[in-house]
């Protein structure tokens, strides 16, 4: 079928071409190669839409397009494209966000007279290409390779302003922390190869399928002396390491707030569509492998729930607008992990999508604000921007409502389903899940609070600084993307209105469920639903459960937002969080997470290295030099025999001869 799906590789290649263009001749192009990037991402977007439509038509695509290393008497290592509902949806999201970010960059970078634009657009292009490659990857190795390239691009873009001290350090931290996660991921990849002899995602010979078969005793795989169940859990957790790193889950979340040093559009790209999304997407991609391991699922869920709450609390007290958004990102991805761990595959995907929209929106909105504020990000210097930048204001409002999970904005639906899935499976006999659910629920309140604290501080009240008095205007290339995303953030929820369906009994409006039920055998939501080790039970009936769950979460969200409204929607807001005292200090310092990690690097690794160095110079090399020293000393002694006095020579000569004579005489028994 030489269908549109055969052009899937082009989706990846177009941004790559723009990368090459911007890198090679970017400085000779207008706008530093921006248009190349826009054109490329637009092309990818079009292709992605076409792809989605085709997939909607029931087609899927899985083909090996390049053999990276052909094994002789060994497995081949290949690159392939896997297009199924999940990847198609993700392609759409990524290309859309990337396109909008490119457009927005015109306003944020070009209009602000940044230098080094070719480098910037080259980075964006490569970033997009890597992420798209990761999305369409049809096996774990290819996924890992593009996963790493994503990491590289984040390094390059976060460190874009390399002449300042901050960005390079942040970039280094981002790469290093995620590298730490990727170490486990790589071990996992190798382990998957060693266990199953393949790393394919789809098909009967894919490793999730083989793992499932192995558990049912239908296939035999190398499990290195473990129970298959245990070994699969171990492998799954190894791969999870990469996820935790990239998706900034506890305890590897520390890099993400620092990554705010990068240009804001890049932050939008990183948080909404590319790097951070990659982790969650990976779990969804190989969900069939996690679904068979209760332990892995439980751990994912708990990490997710904890991160959601943990990050939300830190978001409460931040001063910079981007910092708040950063922690909200961490927290939101926590929700997705929670859903995945809680068996809510669809919910997670759903939240991934909605979050992509409203978080991109919020970041771009923040970018717009930052332009207006002449790159001052401190919310306490803002205020009263409401009337000066209405477009930004309203779109930002939509985004905030979505983030807070207020009905009927997109965030509400997805977050509600996340919590709902977790709840019912928790009730189904998994107290751990209930715990995670509780944390998620609590986080909803905080989310509402910090979101609107940010919102009111930024837009309402009186201007608290000169720049806030008359902010710098923004042009179409900023407003356009905001509007698009604003609409999406508002309405995207319709694709999966499960509560409505459940409550009003309107069938068939859970489009996303149906969507994700398509595609490859073994990669469908149904299949996963059969796999997950949870049973569901309800508070009373299913409908009541839905209602209760929705009501509770919505209530909490409203409560949080309301509190923020009371405290901060005043002309002269004061720093109420100071009342928290010590707690605020703890929160503001992110629970001293960075401190201990920096300590691990500088307080443990480096001294250890220095000790090793001393040992190497002193002992190991000392032995080497010692040997030569000893021989030279011996030489110095030996030559002393040569006194220079000929009589001594005669004496020594005689002695030597006599010694020989005596020795041999006794030996040979001459004197008997």
């Amino acid at each position, binding site marked *: 079928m030489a269908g549109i799906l055969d052009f899937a590789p082009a989706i990846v290649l177009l941004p790559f071409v723009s990368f090459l263009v911007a890198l090679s001749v970017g400085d000779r192009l207008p706008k530093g190669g921006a248009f190349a990037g826009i054109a490329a991402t637009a092309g990818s977007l079009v292709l992605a839409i076409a792809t989605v439509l085709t997939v909607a038509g029931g087609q899927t695509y899985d083909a090996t397009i390049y053999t*990276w290393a052909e094994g002789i008497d060994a497995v081949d290592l290949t690159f392939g494209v896997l297009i199924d509902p999940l990847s198609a949806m993700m392609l759409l999201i990524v290309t859309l966000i990337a396109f909008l970010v490119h457009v927005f960059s015109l306003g944020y970078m070009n209009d602000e007279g940044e230098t080094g634009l070719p480098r910037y657009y080259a980075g964006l292009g490569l970033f997009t290409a890597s992420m798209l490659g990761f999305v369409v990857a049809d096996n774990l190795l290819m996924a890992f390779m593009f996963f790493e390239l994503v990491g590289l691009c984040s390094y390059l873009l976060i460190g874009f302003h390399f002449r300042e001290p901050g960005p390079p350090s942040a970039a280094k931290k981002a790469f290093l922390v995620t590298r730490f996660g990727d170490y486990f991921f790589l071990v996992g990849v190798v382990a998957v190869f060693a266990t199953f002899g393949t790393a394919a995602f789809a098909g009967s010979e894919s490793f999730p399928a083989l793992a499932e078969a192995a558990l049912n005793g239908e296939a035999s795989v190398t499990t290195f002396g473990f129970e298959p169940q245990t070994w699969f859990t171990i492998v799954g957790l190894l791969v999870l390491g990469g996820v935790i790193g990239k998706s900034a889950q506890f305890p590897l979340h520390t890099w993400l707030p620092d990554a705010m040093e990068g240009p804001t559009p890049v932050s939008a790209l990183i948080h909404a569509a590319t790097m951070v999304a990659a982790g969650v997407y990976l779990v969804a991609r190989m969900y069939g492998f996690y679904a068979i391991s209760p332990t892995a699922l439980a751990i994912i869920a708990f990490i997710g729930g904890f991160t959601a709450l943990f990050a939300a609390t830190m978001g409460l007290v931040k001063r910079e607008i981007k910092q708040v958004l950063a922690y909200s990102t961490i927290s939101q991805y926590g929700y997705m992990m929670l859903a995945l761990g809680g068996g809510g595959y669809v919910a997670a995907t759903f939240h991934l999508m909605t979050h992509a929209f409203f978080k991109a929106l919020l970041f771009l909105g923040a970018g717009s604000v930052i332009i207006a504020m002449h790159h001052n990000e401190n919310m306490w210097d803002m205020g009263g921007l409401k009337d000066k930048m209405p477009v930004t204001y309203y779109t930002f409002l939509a985004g905030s409502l979505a983030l807070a999970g207020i009905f009927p904005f997109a965030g509400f639906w997805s977050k509600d389903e996340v919590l709902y899935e977790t709840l019912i499976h928790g009730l189904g006999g998994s107290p751990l899940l209930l715990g995670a659910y509780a944390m998620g629920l609590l986080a909803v309140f905080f989310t509402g609070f910090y979101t609107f604290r940010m919102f009111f501080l930024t837009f309402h009240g009186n201007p608290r600084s000169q720049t806030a008095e008359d902010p710098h205007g923004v042009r179409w290339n900023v407003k356009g993307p905001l509007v698009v995303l604003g609409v999406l953030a508002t309405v995207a929820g319709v694709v999966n209105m499960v509560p409505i369906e459940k409550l009003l009994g309107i069938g068939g409006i859970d489009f996303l469920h149906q969507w994700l039920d398509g595609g490859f055998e073994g990669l469908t939501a149904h299949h996963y639903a059969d796999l997950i080790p949870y049973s569901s039970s309800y508070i009373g009936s299913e409908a009541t459960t839905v209602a209760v769950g929705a009501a509770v979460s919505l209530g909490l969200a409203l409560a949080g937002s309301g509190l923020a409204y009371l405290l901060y929607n005043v002309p002269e807001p004061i720093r109420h969080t100071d009342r928290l005292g010590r707690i605020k200090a703890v929160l503001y310092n992110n629970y001293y997470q960075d401190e201990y990690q920096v300590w691990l690097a500088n307080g443990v690794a480096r001294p250890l290295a220095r000790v090793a160095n001393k040992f190497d110079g002193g002992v190991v090399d000392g032995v080497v030099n010692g040997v030569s020293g000893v021989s030279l000393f011996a030489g110095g002694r030996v030559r002393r025999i040569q006194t220079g006095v000929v009589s001594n020579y005669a004496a020594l000569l005689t002695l030597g001869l006599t010694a020989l004579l005596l020795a041999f005489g006794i030996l040979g028994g001459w004197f008997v």
Partner: protein
Amino acid sequence: MIIEALIAVTFLAALVVFVAPDEYAGRLAAALSALPVLGSLWMWAQYDASGNALLGGSIAFETDVVWLTLGGLDLHWFVGVDGISLPLIVLTTILTTLAIVSAWTPIVERQSQFYGLMLFMEANLLGVFAALDFFAWFIFWEAVLVPMYFLIGVWGGPNRRYAAIKFFVYTNIASLVMFIGFIALVFGLGDSVSSMRLPEIAQALRAGELGAFAGLDAATLKTVAFVAMFLGFAVKVPVAPLHTWLPDAHVEAPTPVSVMLAGVLLKMGTYALLRFNFTMMPDVATALVVPIAAIAVISVIYGAMLALAQEDLKRIVAYSSVSSMGYVILGLIAYTTYGVGGATFQMIAHGLISGLMFMAVGVIYNTTHTRMVGDMSGIADRMPVTAGIFVAGAFGYMGLPLMAGFAGEFFIFKGSFESTVHAGMPLFTATAMFGIVIVAGYLLFAMQRTLFGPFSFDGEYEITNAPFHDVAPLAVLLLLTIVLGVAPDLFFGMIQDAVNPILTGGGL
């Protein structure tokens, strides 16, 4: 005859350059060194052999004539290549040319001697990788040291005398130990071999025709010889704790020499380990798997930790070579297609990348006249191209996918993880793999402190973009690294083909 032609041409080139006047020497040497490059590429294009040269595979470009007879053993002039040696020959020729070009700036005195010695070394290196008779091989093997000794000693840094003599004596003693070990094997084989041709000896050993010698029964003799040869080669590789000559040599040596040292000379050790220990005595190797794997892991982690402690960019790269070579050992002991093949591939990959890194450091040094991380910052502001390539090379060193380093390392990890020689291999592998985190650590720190941040440099030198002929070799190497990373099969195919025969039989 192409191999003889290659070696002869290089020797002649060395002679010509040695007597050429200084002002042309550099250009002349570069031009002449292009001939072997073409030759080796032609060989690569024409390569038609298959299998392992030592284990009965067909040998490409073979020549075999008797040289002299000693104690009933024929010494042959026996050269030829297989899938293992050919990539290394290509690497050698290319790297030499690039190193010569990169020498144009830093080498200012006694140039004709310098370039002559470089070419002389290249000729011997080609001999090392092409020779299939032990004696011819050993003569080339030792002859490589002589030019290296001068290159470090004459054109090196302030402490060059110590470094040169240390390198020279240390590696020579190592060769001696190895030599004794091998000769013991030959005696143990007795009449079952009639010459010192490696294939003959390898096949005899794998066929278990080793007898007792010097009061040692066959098994003990084999183990002793294995250990002796392993130690001898381990110094060259180098493997911790026999590595201490390396940092001194690297720090003192001028850039192009470091490039050759890290790029090719270290590979002599791993190549010899593969050809001798692991091809000829797989049974002993697998019996000693735990200590060998342990040594590999220690080299990786310990080397990386040492690199983390360094302030001198060159020392950083030098120690990270120790770390990377540890991976190679790990791959060799795995006895899987991906393990041994990956190790061989990693030799090429590391040759390119370490060459790239040393050259990049050299280019920075040419302008700043310092290599100390603390002495400069924000260099990228003044020399963006160099900085860009430096960053790319550094990421290559960290094993960034689609660059040669990742291919080599991943092959090794995969191969050694799934290796069946010992139940602990997955654990060893996982431990060694942590090196990829540490390497990222020290390279990122070094780059952040030297290349990025606000520009500051407390030296009287004007810091500007490097001349084209300094940057060009870097670009070429970067390109090659990426090409090999995207299409490893350019070499990996023939490598696997030559490696697979090692993995079966011979007491495995």
